[in-house]
């Protein structure tokens, strides 16, 4: 199999969608072919960049700008701390243009309790 044929499968290899035998053959080729290895490096970098970017929140952000009520609803946590940290990370990146300070905000968010416990529940617990 030449490089042209292998490159057709490069994306499936990066996405882990190849069968084990073909994936092993591709890994062996990438270890010896500098040209294919460069393209593979670019693909992996692009995937890493996209998946670590705050763009996962982009659609929701666009909705929030149009509908303030939805924005308020979105501020209520649907899931607990790890996702709250991601939201804070995305927010921090948007605020500072994508550089710096995200870690500090994430650290603060991870200590924040996002689940509001009603007062009647606390009173019930303290009586037990």
């Amino acid at each position: 199999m030449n490089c042209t044929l292998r490159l057709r499968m490069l994306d499936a290899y990066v996405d882990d969608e190849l069968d084990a035998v073909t994936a092993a053959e591709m890994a062996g080729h990438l270890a010896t072919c500098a040209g294919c290895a460069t393209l593979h490096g670019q693909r992996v970098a692009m995937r890493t960049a996209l998946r670590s970017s705050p763009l996962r929140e982009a659609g929701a952000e666009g909705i929030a700008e149009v509908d303030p009520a939805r924005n308020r609803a979105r501020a209520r946590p649907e899931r607990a701390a790890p996702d709250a940290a991601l939201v804070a990370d995305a927010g921090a990146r948007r605020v500072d243009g994508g550089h710096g300070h995200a870690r500090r905000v994430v650290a603060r968010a991870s200590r924040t309790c996002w689940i509001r416990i009603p007062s009647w529940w606390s009173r019930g617990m303290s009586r037990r």
Partner: protein
Amino acid sequence: MPRINLARWITRDAGMAKDAVQDGCLRAFRAFDRMQGPNARAWFLAVIRNTCIDVLREQRGHATDEAYDDDVHGMEAPPESGGTLTPEDIVARASDAEWLRGCIDALPREYREVVVLRELEELSYKEISAIVDIPIGTVMSRLSRGRDLLQQRMLFAHKVSRR
């Protein structure tokens, strides 16, 4: 909230995305008993995607399937021999979310939707095939071409921003 993100990426407009998600939720609710396949998430995203395309057609008054045309979509992109992006360049530039959003938004819809479903929603080829209603082989080729185009656009935008 993958349904909202997907609608935003397909329509490229927050208002239209909102309309499409509302209509799509209603359609999904009405058609819930006719749900096909074991993957409810993929089915629901397929309903949202189809609704987005209908909303686009209604609002723009014409078919919105942008077939890829090198003369139109390839115009901005530099020839491949014009330079390459190192992995470090890609990661550094992609940290600017607005810039990256512009690069993705510039892709024709047929490539944009598979790139978004794979890279941002992290769906498998099989799930993407079910949502977009195309064979897995077509998912592979669209994803490959879509990433090529995205890489070219990143390189082009990278060069422009350096001027």
